[in-house]
């Protein structure tokens, strides 16, 4: 929902669109610059549990438990000429829908939720992977620029249906 001004919504919308574009065009370095220095990037493991036990997201186990510093390492790796998993690169498409913007905890911050359908194919086999998730982001405005302070990727999978996570969500 929009619980902020329409202006803010548009800025956030533009930010997410730009971000998706950078990822789908494999500009990982520029993508990294969208993060604040104290950024967190988390993708918890999800366990199939009974309704009474909640949504099954682990508090200890993750697929990604990243800081800006660890994302930097991942991007550096992709920048070498030896990142076989992404060369030839995956063809990805980030379908970002259901964007909801609310006031953040701090001022200059907004809490953003969005649904992400990630299409991924590689090589020349007629096979593709689909990852579905909700993303809960916190964006902070720094020097007039929105930055990603925190992202939590909440998967709709208890078993990941892709052979690796050499791409970002």
């Amino acid at each position: 929902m929009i619980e902020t001004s329409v202006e803010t919504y548009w800025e956030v919308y533009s930010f997410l669109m730009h971000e998706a574009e950078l990822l789908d065009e494999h500009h990982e370095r520029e993508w990294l610059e969208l993060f604040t220095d104290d950024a967190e990037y988390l993708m918890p493991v999800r366990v199939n549990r009974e309704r009474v036990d909640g949504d099954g997201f682990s508090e200890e186990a993750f697929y990604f438990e990243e800081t800006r510093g660890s994302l930097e390492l991942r991007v550096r790796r992709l920048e070498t000429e030896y990142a076989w998993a992404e060369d030839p690169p995956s063809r990805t498409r980030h379908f970002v829908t259901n964007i909801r913007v609310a006031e953040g905890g701090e001022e200059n911050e907004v809490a953003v939720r969005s649904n992400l359908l990630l299409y991924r194919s590689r090589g020349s086999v007629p096979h593709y992977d689909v990852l579905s998730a909700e993303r809960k982001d916190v964006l902070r405005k720094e020097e007039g620029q929105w930055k990603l302070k925190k992202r939590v990727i909440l998967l709709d999978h208890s078993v990941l249906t892709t052979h690796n996570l050499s791409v970002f969500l």
Partner: protein
Amino acid sequence: MIEQPTRERETQEILQEAKRALEEEGKLLAKVYNEPGIFEFEAKKIFAKTWIFLAHETEIPWPGDYVLRRIIDDSFIVSRDEDGQIHVLFNMCRHRGMQLCRSDAGNSSHFRCPYHGYTYTNTGKLNGVPFQKEAYGPDGLDKDEWAMTPAPRMEIYEGMIFASLNPEVPPLEEYIGDMGWYLDFYLKKSPAGLEVVGAPQRWVMPADWKLAAENFIGDGYHTQSTHMSTIKAGIMRVKNPAYLKDGVQITAGMHGCLFMGFKPGSYFNYPQSIVDSMLENLEPEQVKLLKESSILPLNATVFPNLSFLHSAMAIEAEGPLATSVPYLTLRIWQPMGPGKIEVWSWCLVEKDAPEEFKKNSNRALLTTFGASGTLEQDDAENWSGVTRVAAGEMSGQHYLNYAAGLAHVEPIPDSEWPGPGTAYPKNYVDFAQRRFWESYFDHMLK
């Protein structure tokens, strides 16, 4: 009419020829990596016959805790009963076969079948049958006859819960045999023992399980090429890409592992408390290797599909975490059908390690291994690549090279090596990989 050979016979012939070539020429027939008939044999002759790792005790610490695990398509409830005893129960109701438990983890003293309401305790006892007299008469059902079916065999090794579909399988202790001496380095660094960090990562890969198992049993050679990107990026903190070339490769029974050297006294950068406890807790002979040879097992495979990895990597680009942080992962390569696996990857850490270290150790693991691991990403690329190109006709005449070390490497004399099994003084060799295949053919051609 020309009689066509059945697929079963063709599979058998492929296996015979592959075994011959390996034994006589140190070559492997590539077809074994992707042939539908072979998978059916493997299910029956390997995964239904050997010990398969299911879970770690610390995944179900409390009475009533349970997790669901599989051996290929067979679902098992691994439960801890009120007395702390662990049970491995086939997850199928005895009445009409419904999947009894449908959540992957939880805590419950009983399992109630949704279909007709039979209820079993977490020990497998049949304990409730709705309207029993109505359905089965005045004497009701024989509760013992209709209890849940336990896995034919279940044993625990150092906190690791194994099961086997084979009632005749040798005791687990004996099955692991000499390999136990080497597993101690992973499992006994602290008297407190190990604990899992959260739940395992799980993901699917279009790869044959044998590629992963044989890579983990001893492929030190691939690091300088497959994982070059992590060296360049400063994740793997080494200067020389061939740093792994010196070490010791081990074959022990059906299993094997690889020793990696570390800077004397650094002990993989383990916290001092863990270093102290490992030097105290391990056997003198084992400590000698640590202290004098400065080597530790890096990777290992327990036949058929359980692997270990002990390593140390950087987590961040700068700052305190830009240095090697050690970690231990245990993983299984669960077949999902021909050329397809589900990988389960656990992070294990000493129970008495500092909390902050536990968190960092887990981060170091997922930076490098697991679905998002910067090293395992490229392993996945290799394993799925081999599987894909092995699918056709050509792989039926394509022989792969397993000769590394054959020409020039001799085992270390027992007098000079403290451990059991056979030790080879190099890492860029194929002795352990060949041992994996010998174990494989022993089972497949029985």
